[in-house]
């Protein structure tokens, strides 16, 4: 299932502030998360708190469909999902020339050093650990996205 969630970022012009002060302000994000509560929280964190336009997908398969439809500037993926997990979703995004360059960040509870190494080796831009802070999630994504040239972490 793919749906647009959060709120219209143009109605929050005053709230859209990039803490890093860079010009490449991230505004269009697609998330894939199978937990509906976490999904709602991410939508709130990025939509209302972060001023982003958020597309929500319940699994990796829906994310692949959504990516071609909304052309997000960044994809935020859970790792453990039914149907298609995060790593396989990333592999398929990278294999398609239309989506190969879209930055992908994992949001996961599996953040042991060997897990992180695996995600980054497969081409993820970064990894954000669960539990996460809803108040700073948008800032973390913008930091990762705004300086994508630096070594991923």
């Amino acid at each position, binding site marked *: 299932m793919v749906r647009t969630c959060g709120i219209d970022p143009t109605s929050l012009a005053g709230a859209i502030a990039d803490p890093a002060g860079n010009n490449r302000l991230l505004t269009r994000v697609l998330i894939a998360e199978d*937990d509906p*509560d*976490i999904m709602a929280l991410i939508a709130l964190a990025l939509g*209302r708190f972060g001023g982003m336009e958020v597309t929500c997908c319940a699994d990796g398969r829906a994310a692949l469909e959504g990516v071609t439809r909304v052309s997000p500037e960044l994809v935020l993926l859970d790792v453990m999902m039914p149907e298609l997990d995060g790593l396989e979703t990333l592999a398929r995004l990278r294999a398609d020339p239309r989506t190969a360059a879209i930055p992908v960040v994992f949001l*996961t509870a599996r953040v042991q050093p060997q897990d992180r190494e695996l995600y980054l080796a497969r081409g993820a831009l970064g990894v954000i650990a*669960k*539990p*996460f802070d*809803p108040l700073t999630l948008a800032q973390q994504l913008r930091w990762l996205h705004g300086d994508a040239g630096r070594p991923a972490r």
Partner: protein
Amino acid sequence: MAMLVDQLDSALDPLADLRGRFIERSLQRVAMLRVALAGDRPSVATIAPLAHQLAGSAGTFGYAALGRAAATLEDVARAAGSTGAPLDVALIRPHLLALEWQLARADPTRPDPPTGEAAAALSG
């Protein structure tokens, strides 16, 4: 009046509504865990994903102890199930009780959770 106060709380604190839904869903997940453990052949394939979802979301909603209890249950279930044999219920049950205890502490609509020795035994 109480409903009005609840609506006002929700408007002022958008996280409050999400927290309430998280607690409701957590109660459902724990009930499913209880049913799974009461079955003939409880399996890691049933128990670990439920515990994993709780572990991943509880901390984010501010219930760190609940998240830790769920993570422990997931770890114990995965370790016990790594042989492929049916799970040992006696091994898993104390961790489910600890999870229920932490959920009772997190849920404002439930009666006060146990105290004293019972609480100590359950909270690990």
